[in-house]
């Protein structure tokens, strides 16, 4: 009976804004090595769900367990330190800093003000930054300021900034928005590579992309769980078809 706890357990989670239930009594489990996609029409509560897990929004009821421990009431940075990384919908990188510095800032050491004050660039950091940059296809752009990167490259940089923290769960909000077909393919490849040894939670509109990467798909509608399963099964679910095509 007592098995390994789920990496992430969301149980009965809900939040309402002025009576409007953005996420309502949602339960979902995620295990190591899994790529899970969350889809749903606009306003289904996808981004709100990420906000709730990452601590940006406080839940009204329910709880979130991570590696068996409750994280529902932790602060954002504590949740990050527990091992949950999050990419925002619009690429959120430091435009004025170089690609190198962007990754360096995300390196998970010296995260207190005192530590950061005494921290100087160390060979380990340089090595790790180069390693990650290679993984996210930005090896040749290390000395460029982030503002001159293309949109897709900024998305990769932000993924790299999560990756350098070696999170156990990565949550990506629309990682391929605004990317070319070629960049999408490379991103799919990247996500598959980095899902080894961790779980990845992806919110995405692009069905083709979802189909190419996700093991399991969760469909949200009006804050509630509508369907869950393999993409092929979900696609033929009449409830899902109704929500997507019904109006």
């Amino acid at each position: 009976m007592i098995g390994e706890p789920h990496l992430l357990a969301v149980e009965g989670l809900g939040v309402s804004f002025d009576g409007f239930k953005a996420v309502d009594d949602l339960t979902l489990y995620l295990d190591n090595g899994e790529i899970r996609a969350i889809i749903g029409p606009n306003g289904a509560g996808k981004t709100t769900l990420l906000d709730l897990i990452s601590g940006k929004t406080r839940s009204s009821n329910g709880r979130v367990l991570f590696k068996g421990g409750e994280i529902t009431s932790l602060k954002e940075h504590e949740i990050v330190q527990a091992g949950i990384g999050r990419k925002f919908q619009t690429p959120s990188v430091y435009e004025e800093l170089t690609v190198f510095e962007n990754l360096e800032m995300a390196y998970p050491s010296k995260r207190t003000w005192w530590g950061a004050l005494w921290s100087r660039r160390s060979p380990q950091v340089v090595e790790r930054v180069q390693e990650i940059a290679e993984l996210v296809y930005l090896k040749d752009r290390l000395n460029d300021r982030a503002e001159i990167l293309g949109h897709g490259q900024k998305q990769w940089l932000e993924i790299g900034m999560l990756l350098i923290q070696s999170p156990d769960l990565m949550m990506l909000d629309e990682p391929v928005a605004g990317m070319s077909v070629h960049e999408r393919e490379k991103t799919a490849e990247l996500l598959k590579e980095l899902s080894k040894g961790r779980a990845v939670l992806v919110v995405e509109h692009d069905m083709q992309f979802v189909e190419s990467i996700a093991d399991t798909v969760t469909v949200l509608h009006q804050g509630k769980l509508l369907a869950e399963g393999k993409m092929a099964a979900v696609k033929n679910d009449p409830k899902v078809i109704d929500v997507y095509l019904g109006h």
Partner: protein
Amino acid sequence: MSMTIEPQTTKAARLLAFSRLRKLELSRDQLGFAITALLLLVVFPLSLSGFRLGMVSKYLTYAFPAIALVVCWGKGGILSLGQGVFFGLGGYCMAMFLKLEASDPQSTSIQSTPGIPDFMDWNQLTELPLFWVPFNSLPFTLFAVVAVPGLLALGISLAMFKRRVGGVYFAIITQAIASVLTILIIGQQGYTGGVNGITDLKTLGGWDIRTDSAKLILYYANASLLLGTVLFATWILRSKLGRLLAAMREKEERVRFTGYDVASLKVFVFVFAAVVSAIGGAMFTLVVGFMSPSFVGIVPSIEMVIAAAVGGRHSLLGAIYGSLLVNYGKTFFSESFPELWLFLLGGLFILVVMAFPNGLAGLDIKRYLDKTRLEKLGAKLKALDPATVAPATMAPGAASPVPPRGGVQQ
């Protein structure tokens, strides 16, 4: 064969250009610092009269809060419109010590209560208030100069930043605090000297601060402390914390979701700014010989922001020149057109914000030269880049080189 070599050379050239760029930046900072040090420590003392040097000395004390604002506002994005609070508290702590030393029973024997500061006697106080007593000690006073404003800043910033109050709201709150402190000081005349402030300061540990030689020594102490502050602030800005400040100014959420407690970083910067401002205030008291509420309130606080903006809010050295210029302007204009001064000051601020958002530092000629040099380097890099080279050379060249080679073989 040439195709495999080309990217290598491009990469090498790019790396070289980058290291050159970094060197330029470093040498520009060092050169700027050397020039400023020369100006403050050699040129001014040799070329200015005692009176003028005294004025420069006073202006330089305002450079402390300006430097504080460069770190806090320019780099960290936290605008404080209440830097006068910390400048004033530092100044008052120092003034309290000097006042007690000047109020020994002999020289105050005509008072109804000898041995207490004169303004207390005028306000019918018959003994020294309890909070004044520790200021009999110089070590305590030096500690208080830093600790009192530092603790206040810690309290304010913890209360604000932990609740995620920022931006304009934070600026307004700091301004309100400046206003409150001024009213408090003026209202509590018997404890603070009221609107006149604490005046008639004479000696520091028996050393008369009013003599010409003392003024010269204080000038050097002040200038050295200022240069030391610049070095210390540079050290902070070069650390990871310095780069985090830039990151935080731009994308606070991203910093938070990278696992940093943004509030604690902001608290550090704000407290640092307060302590630096307070050191300036304490030096002001020593250099000028008095402290009053007119250096605490809203107007002086805004003047400090203007000095930082005029000098360039991203430049530590700019803050020194901004303070010198704005305060010299203030002296000059307020003597010539006393009624117009505030309008001129406001006009200056608007002009700087509209026309030179990076202040004096943004105008600096060396940087302009560097920029043109960098543009040349950039052009060279472009010329080396195969992506841009290829279409340019391929188009006219592709047709001709191939057939002749074929011709030779045949």
